[in-house]
C-alpha cells in the first residue's frame, strides 16, 4: 500500500517536472549568439565599447520580449587581440556553446583567423573590423559592419574634387592601418583625377615628422592627406602647424575620436576627416534618416556607461540589430536561414549608415555612410 502510493506520487511528480521542462523549452530556450572581442590588449579601445554595447542591447532586446519570443544569450570571449586565441574561442563557440550566429572580431587580424571556423560550421559571422579583405572576395557566411578605408579615400577625394584640388601630398604611418589606407588611396586616386605628388611615411612611434612635412611643403601639393590612426596623426597635425603649412589638411576616419582633438590641441582646428555620422549625431538636421537611431544609441550608451560613445561600439550595435532583424525575418534560428536573411538586409538604418546587403556586397554601405567633418574650436562640425 505504502509503496504503491509513493510510486504514484513519484510518477505524478515526474510527469509534472517533465511538463514544466518541456514548457520552458518551447517558451524560453535562449538563442545563443557568440562574440569574440579584443576587450583587453592593444585593441582594447575598440573591443571594450563593443562588448558594452552588445551586452547593453542584448539586455534591452530581452526586456522587450526577446526575438521570436525567446531571449538572446550572449557568449563573450576576450581574445586580448591575439588571432590564434580568437580562433580557439571561435571553435569553442561552434562546438561547445552551439551558437547560431557570431557578432564580433574586433580587428581584421582576429577576424581573418576566425573566418575558416565559421565557414566550416556554416554559421553566419558579422565582423566588426575594417579591413576590406574580410568581404572581398565575398565569403557566403561573412559580413562586416564598418566602412572600409577605400571608402574613406573616396570620400576625401570627392571633397578634394569639389574644392578643385588635383595634387595631393600623402603622409602615412607604416602600421597596418596607414599602410592599407595608403594602398587604397593610391589605387582610387586616378578615378578622381587626383595625382599624388608626394608620398611620405613615418613609423608608428615616431615623435617628429617635420622632415617629411618639409618635403611635402616643397612639393606641388595643394592639399595633404594623413592616413593613420593613434599617435601619428596628432604628431603630424602639430608639426603641420609648427611648420606653418597653410594647405588644407585631411585626416582619415581613424582619428574620429575625441582623443585626437585632445592630443593635437589647437592644431587640430581646420583639419577635415570623413567619419560616421555618430560623432555629430546631435548636429544632424532633423530630417536626416540616421538621426533618430544615432541619438537613441548615443543616449542609451552614455547613460549606461557614463563614457562618450564611439563609432566602434556603434558597429556592434549595427551587428546585433541586423542579426535580430534577420532572425525575425527568417522566423527561424537555423544558421543557414539567418545567413540568407542577413544577406537580404535592405534599408536597415544603423549607426554606420544605411545597409543594403546583396550576395555580392556583404557590407552594404555606400559613400553616404561617411560625413565630411571639419574640426572647429576643438569640436566636430559638418564641413560646409
Amino acid at each position, binding site marked *: 500500500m505504502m509503496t504503491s502510493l509513493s510510486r504514484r506520487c513519484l510518477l505524478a511528480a515526474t510527469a509534472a517536472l517533465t511538463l514544466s521542462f518541456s514548457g520552458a523549452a518551447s517558451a524560453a530556450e535562449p538563442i545563443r549568439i557568440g562574440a569574440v572581442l579584443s576587450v583587453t590588449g592593444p585593441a*582594447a*579601445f575598440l573591443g571594450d565599447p563593443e562588448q558594452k554595447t552588445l551586452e547593453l542591447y542584448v539586455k534591452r532586446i530581452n526586456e522587450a520580449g526577446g526575438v521570436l519570443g525567446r531571449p538572446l544569450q550572449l557568449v563573450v570571449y576576450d581574445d586580448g587581440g591575439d588571432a590564434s586565441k580568437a580562433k580557439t574561442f571561435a571553435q569553442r563557440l561552434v562546438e561547445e556553446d552551439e551558437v547560431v550566429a557570431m557578432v564580433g572580431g574586433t580587428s581584421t587580424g582576429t577576424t581573418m583567423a576566425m573566418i575558416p571556423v565559421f565557414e566550416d560550421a556554416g554559421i553566419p559571422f558579422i565582423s566588426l573590423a575594417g579591413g576590406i579583405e574580410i568581404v572581398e572576395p565575398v565569403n557566403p557566411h561573412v559580413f562586416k559592419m564598418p566602412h572600409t578605408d577605400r571608402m574613406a579615400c573616396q570620400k576625401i577625394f570627392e571633397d578634394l574634387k569639389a574644392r578643385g584640388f588635383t595634387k595631393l601630398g600623402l603622409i602615412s604611418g*607604416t602600421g597596418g592601418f596607414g599602410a592599407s589606407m595608403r594602398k587604397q588611396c593610391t589605387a582610387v586616386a586616378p578615378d578622381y583625377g587626383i595625382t599624388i605628388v608626394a608620398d*611620405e*611615411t*613615418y*613609423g608608428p*612611434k615616431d*615623435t*617628429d*615628422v*617635420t*622632415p*617629411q612635412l*618639409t*618635403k611635402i611643403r*616643397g612639393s606641388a601639393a595643394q592639399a595633404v592627406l594623413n592616413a593613420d590612426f*593613434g*599617435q601619428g596623426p*596628432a*604628431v603630424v597635425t*602639430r608639426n603641420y*602647424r*609648427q*611648420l*606653418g603649412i597653410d594647405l588644407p589638411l585631411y585626416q582619415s576616419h581613424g582619428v574620429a575620436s575625441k*582623443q585626437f582633438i*585632445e*592630443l593635437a*590641441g*589647437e*592644431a587640430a582646428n581646420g583639419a577635415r576627416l570623413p567619419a560616421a555620422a555618430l560623432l555629430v549625431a546631435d548636429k544632424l538636421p532633423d530630417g536626416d534618416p540616421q538621426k533618430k537611431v544615432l541619438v537613441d544609441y548615443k543616449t542609451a550608451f552614455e547613460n549606461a556607461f557614463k563614457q562618450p560613445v564611439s563609432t566602434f561600439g556603434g558597429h556592434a550595435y549595427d551587428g546585433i540589430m541586423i542579426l535580430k532583424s534577420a532572425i525575425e525575418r527568417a522566423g527561424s534560428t537555423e544558421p543557414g536561414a539567418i545567413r540568407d536573411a542577413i544577406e537580404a538586409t535592405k534599408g536597415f538604418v544603423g549607426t554606420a549608415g544605411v545597409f543594403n546587403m546583396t550576395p555580392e556586397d556583404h557590407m552594404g554601405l555606400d559613400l553616404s555612410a561617411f560625413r565630411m567633418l571639419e574640426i572647429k574650436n576643438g569640436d566636430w562640425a559638418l564641413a560646409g
Partner: protein
Amino acid sequence: MSELLQFLFSGLTVGAIYALVALGFTLVYRASDVVNFAQGEFVMLGGMTTVFLVQLGLPIPAAAVLAVLATIAVGLLLHRLAIEPARGAGAVTLVIITIGASIFLRGAAQVVFDKQLHQLPAFSGDAPVTVLGATILPQSFWILGGTAALVVLLWAFINRTLVGKAVIATAGNRLAARLVGIDTGRIVGLSFALSAAIGAVAGILAAPITFTSYDIGTMLALKGFAAAMLGGMGSPVGAVAGGLLLGLLEALGAGYLSSTYKDAVAFVVILAVLFAMPNGLFGEAVRERV
C-alpha cells in the same frame, strides 16, 4: 637652407631625447656592466606620473619633482629587488632580468595609469619660433637646454665630488675600489637612481611634444641603446654624441633620402661605424676584468 635647418632642428630635438636615454644606459653599464633595458620605462614613468599628478590638480613643477622622486624610488627598488640578489650572475642573465623588469613595469603602468596616450601642456606655449625660415617649438629649447644642463651637472658630480670619484673607481675596477673601502653595492644602487632620474627628466621634458603612454619605453630603449653603442658603451660623452647623431641621421635620412628607409639609413650608418670602430666613436677598448 631653411630646409636643412628644419631637418637639423628636428634631428637635434629627437636626438637629445635619445641622448638622455643613452646616458642612462651608460651610467648603469659603467658601474655594474649591466645593460638595463628597463631604461625606457624610466622615461615612461617620468612622463606618465607627471601627467597623472597634473590631472590630480598639482602644478607642473611640483608634479615633475614628485615624478622624478617616484622614478628614482622605482630605480632603487629595481636594483634592490632584481639586480642585487642576482649579483655575480652573468651579463646575459642580468640583461634578461632587466628585460623582465621592463615588461613588469609596462604592465604595472597599464594598471596603475591607463592605456591611453597623454600629453602635458608645453612649458612655454605652443607658438613656434622662426629661425632663418625654419620653425622650432619652444619645448625643443627646453629639451635641448635640459639635456645640456643634465650633462653638465652629471659631469660636475662625477668629476668634482668624492662620491663621483667613487663611481669612477667602481667603473674602473670594482675589486680595487672595494679594497680601498668603497661600498660598490651602494655605488651601483646610486647609478640606478641617477639613471632613473635622468630617464624621468627626459620623459617629462619630451611629453609635451612626443606624447606619453605606458608603452613608449620599448622604442626609446631600442633607440637609446643604439645611440649608446654608436657613441661607445660606457662613455658619457659618447652617449650624448651618439644620441644626437642618431636623431640627426634619422631626420636627414627622412628629409633627403626616403622617409620609408629613415630607420634603415640610421642603422646602416651605425653598423658601418661599429664595423670600423667596434667600441663605438668614444668607447675605450674592452678590458677583461679578472
